[in-house]
C-alpha cells in the first residue's frame, strides 16, 4: 500500500522541484495529458467498483492514453486542425460519465450496507 503513495509523493515533489521549462505553446498538450491521466484513473476506479478491473488494461491504458492524447493534439496543431479541443471534449465527457457511474455504484453500495445494518440491529 505504501509503495503507490510513495510514488505519488515522489512524483509530486519531482514535478515541483524539477527545473524543466516547457514552451508556452506546449501547455495544451500538458493539460490534455492531465485530462487523460485523470480520466484513466477514474476509469480504473469505476472498473474496480464494477468488478471488471484488469491491471493490464489500467496500466497500459494510463500511459497509452496520455501519450496518444498529447501526440494527437501535437499532430492536430501541425495539421492545422484543433484536435486538442476534440481530446478535451472526449476526455471531459468520459470523466464526468465515470464520475457519475462511480457515484451511482457507491450510492447503491451504501444503501445496501444500510439495509444490512438495519436488519442486523432489528434482529
Amino acid at each position, binding site marked *: 500500500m505504501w*509503495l503507490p503513495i510513495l*510514488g*505519488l509523493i*515522489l*512524483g509530486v515533489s*519531482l*514535478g515541483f522541484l524539477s527545473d524543466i521549462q*516547457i514552451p508556452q505553446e506546449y501547455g495544451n498538450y500538458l493539460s490534455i495529458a492531465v485530462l487523460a*491521466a485523470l480520466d484513466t484513473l477514474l476509469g480504473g476506479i469505476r472498473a474496480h467498483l464494477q468488478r471488471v478491473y484488469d491491471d493490464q488494461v489500467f*496500466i497500459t491504458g494510463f500511459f497509452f492514453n496520455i501519450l496518444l492524447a498529447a501526440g494527437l493534439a501535437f499532430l492536430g496543431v501541425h495539421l492545422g486542425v484543433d484536435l486538442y479541443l476534440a481530446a478535451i471534449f472526449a476526455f471531459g465527457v468520459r470523466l464526468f460519465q465515470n464520475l457519475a457511474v462511480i457515484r451511482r455504484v457507491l450510492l447503491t453500495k451504501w444503501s445496501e450496507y444500510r439495509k444490512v445494518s438495519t436488519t442486523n440491529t432489528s434482529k
Partner: protein
Amino acid sequence: MKKMRTKKKVMTVSLKTSDRKKRNNRISYALVFLVLGFILSFSYRTLGPGSETQQLRSQIDSKEEGFREELIEQKERNKQLTDEISSKQKTIAEVEQTLSDTEENHDLLVKEAKSLRLLLGVVPASGQGVRVELADGDYDPAEQNPNEYIVHESQVLLVVNELKIAGAQALSINGQRLNANSSIKCTGPVITIDGQTYPAPFVVEAIGDSNALNSSLMLKGGVMDSLLSDNIEMKIEKRKEILMPALRDDIQG
C-alpha cells in the same frame, strides 16, 4: 501422502506467483502514481496560478489595459485637438473675412488715392481723354475791340470747369498740369497759370472718359456754343492716349 505433497507444492508455487504478481502490480501502481503526481504538479507549476505563464498572461493583460487607457487618452486628446482645429479654422475664416474686407476697403482707398493724386497732379497721368484747342478768332478789321475775338481766361476757365464737372481726372493747359489750387489769371494778351504765362492758342487736355467729356463740351447751349459765339476757334478731339506730366515742383509752392 505423495499426492498431498505435490498439492502443497503446487499451492506454494501458486502463492509465490501471486506474490510476485502482486509486487509487480504494486510497482506498476507506484509508477502510475508517480507519473500522475508528476504531471499534476508539473502542470500546476507551469500553467497554474502564480506560474510563469500566468504571470506572463497577467503582465500582458496589464500591458493591454495600459495600452487601452493610452488609446482612450489619445482619442480624447485627438478629439480635443480636432475641436481646437475647428475653432482655429473658424477664427482663421473670420480673420480672412476681415482681411478681405479690409483689402476691398484698401482697394477702394487705393483707387480713391490714385484719383485724388491725379487730381492733385503730383503723379504723371496717362489714359484716354479729350484735347480741346482754343485759338483766337481771325483778325476782323471791322471789329474795333480785340477783346471780341481773343481767348479770355474766363473762357479757358469755363472749359476747364466744364471738364472737371464732367469727371476729368487730370487737366493740363499747354502742358502745364493743373491741380485743385491752380489759378488762371488774365494778364493782357496772355494768361498766367500758376505763375507761368502762356499765349494763345491754348490746348486744354483732360484725362477721363473721353465720350463723357466730349459730350459735356458739345452740349447744346453749353461751352462749345458759347465759345463759338464769342468768335473763338475751338477744336475738340477725342484721344485714346494722352500723356500728362506731373506738377512741376518749382511751381507747386
